[in-house]
């Protein structure tokens, strides 16, 4: 048996049993972060904080929400909004956070693409991050079903129909996913389960994987410089802090991180208190009606770009390209053939143009996805969708011709 001595205090008692000091070093004070970073490196912590906001507000909503087709709508719009003291706060925090979390995810993603943070040993960070994006998308969609309003119902109808696979007519699969011919009680029940248990579990697991994937390659920096963390951390610990290229995760980096988090939270609660309506679609304040489609069905803003890739084509081609758009980002580390790990602007004209064009094109796709599919908007959407696909197909050729910087 291991040898224990009489503890000199609470910390020593815990240390003997849980090695808290070692854990603290490994996780915090001797987890090294490069100094050469900017506020965009705080997006990870902003996402953690937003996830916690979603979790806490979700716990309070869960206590009053009733997952049945007869009561779901009223439990949200009457019980939670009118009866529960501060019920409106949990709902608005949950709704706004669900929207804002995607904004921060997109910033986080494009920061990664810009600085090449998916290259040379950091592939698993990128892949686990994209898996998180998928899990968050599923979580957002399943949550959107729960108020059982018109948009919930019709988004559920349209998205589950995607699984029929166009001309494959896998209607049996669609009915199996719904547990009915149309979205009904079985559907609401299972999406409720997915939203409050299975998907959050998957997200927590993936967050663990995402953090673990950072440990060995470490965080990237503004120049994509390869840092010898052993050498630099030794300098720091020997008291040569100014010369060292790294700093402690806690409290050095955390103090900057939390500064950004603080600014973010002011913006966030400004939205929650004064401008929450963007996250609550007016159409969803009508109870679900299977015999009436709303005049315009569109997803939340964060899904618009991929929706716009589905829309201009016939169903089979649309589905293929939509599927392509959903998975292609995962393969970025392998499609980028260039040896350079540095900001997009320093990688030569080709990739520089590719990056900024991709970013602007996704904004164009998002805007077109919101507009009705008529006239000039149809054409712009079609061109943008084709451009998106062409850009990804061209990426390996562009990057393999890139010169070493």
């Amino acid at each position, binding site marked *: 048996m291991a040898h224990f001595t009489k503890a000199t205090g609470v910390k020593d008692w815990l240390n003997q049993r849980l090695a808290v000091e070692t854990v603290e070093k490994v996780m915090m004070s001797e987890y090294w972060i490069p100094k050469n970073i900017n506020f965009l490196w705080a997006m990870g912590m902003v996402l953690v904080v937003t996830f916690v906001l979603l979790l806490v507000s979700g716990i309070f909503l869960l206590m009053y929400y009733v997952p049945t087709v007869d009561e779901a709508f009223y439990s949200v719009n009457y019980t939670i909004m009118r009866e529960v003291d501060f019920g409106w706060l949990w709902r608005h925090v949950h709704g706004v956070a669900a929207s804002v979390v995607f904004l921060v995810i997109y910033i986080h993603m494009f920061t990664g693409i810009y600085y090449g943070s998916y290259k040379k040993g950091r592939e698993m960070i990128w892949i686990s991050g994209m898996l998180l994006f998928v899990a968050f998308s599923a979580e957002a969609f399943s949550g959107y079903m729960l108020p059982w309003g018109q948009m919930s119902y*019709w988004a559920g*109808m*349209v998205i589950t*129909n*995607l699984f029929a696979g*166009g*001309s494959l*007519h896998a*209607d049996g699969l669609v*009915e*199996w*996913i*719904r*547990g*009915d*011919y*149309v979205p*009904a009680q*079985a559907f609401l029940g*299972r999406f409720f389960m997915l939203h409050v248990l299975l998907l959050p579990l998957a997200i927590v697991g993936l967050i663990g994987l995402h953090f673990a994937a950072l440990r060995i390659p470490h965080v990237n920096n503004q120049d994509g410089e390869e840092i010898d963390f052993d050498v630099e951390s030794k300098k720091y610990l020997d008291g040569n802090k100014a010369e060292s290229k790294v700093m402690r995760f806690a409290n050095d980096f955390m103090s900057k991180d939390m500064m950004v988090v603080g600014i973010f939270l002011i913006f966030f609660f400004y939205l929650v208190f004064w401008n929450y309506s963007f996250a609550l679609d007016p159409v969803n304040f009508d109870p679900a009606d*299977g*015999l*009436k*489609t*709303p*005049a*315009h*069905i569109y997803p939340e803003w964060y899904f618009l770009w991929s929706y716009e890739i589905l*829309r201009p*084509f*016939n*169903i*089979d081609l*649309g589905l293929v390209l939509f599927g392509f758009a959903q998975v292609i980002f995962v393969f970025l580390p392998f499609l980028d053939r260039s040896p350079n790990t540095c900001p997009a602007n320093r990688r030569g004209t080709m990739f520089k143009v590719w990056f900024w064009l991709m970013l602007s094109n996704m904004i164009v796709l998002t805007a077109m996805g919101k507009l*009705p*599919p*008529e006239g000039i908007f*149809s054409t712009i959407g079609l061109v943008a969708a084709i451009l998106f696909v062409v850009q990804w197909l061209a990426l390996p050729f562009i990057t393999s011709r890139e010169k070493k910087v």
Partner: protein
Amino acid sequence: MENNSRRGFMGKAFGAVAAVGAVGSLVAMKKSWDPLPSVKAAGFTTLDMTTYQEGVMVTEKWRGKPIFVLKKSAEVMENEKGNPAAEARNIKIGDDNFMVAIGLCTHLGCIPAFRPAENDFLCACHGGMFDASGLVTKVPPPRGFDIPPFKIDGTNLILGEVGPEWQSMKDNGVTL
């Protein structure tokens, strides 16, 4: 060495037990998500076809889905002449002619709106259009409205039951 092979055997034995259990539980999980017997049993609707007026589109409900019923006027029938695709979809009950179809766009399942003035259907989701016989006039929908399984019983139409008229539509590829 002996120990190793024993451990190897135990590992394989456990693997076999676990595999059987995994397959069994997957079957149970799959079956638990199937539509319930009560859901399947409620899948029949009877319509009295004498109650409809010409040119007035009525939406009925079958298996939770909207069913478009449109009694066609002589003018519509005249337009359909010489168009075998439209004629094949016609449902004749007594002397009356009907378009009966599942009122969901075959693209992604939105309900297209009937426009009485134009006598056609427009889907707001992705801009698909259908004519009064239920045929596509503008993509993205890949095919005309699906026709629900039906059986003609005098002047009644029983949705959910397969009659000879529907079977021949299905066999001829008129509907899915």
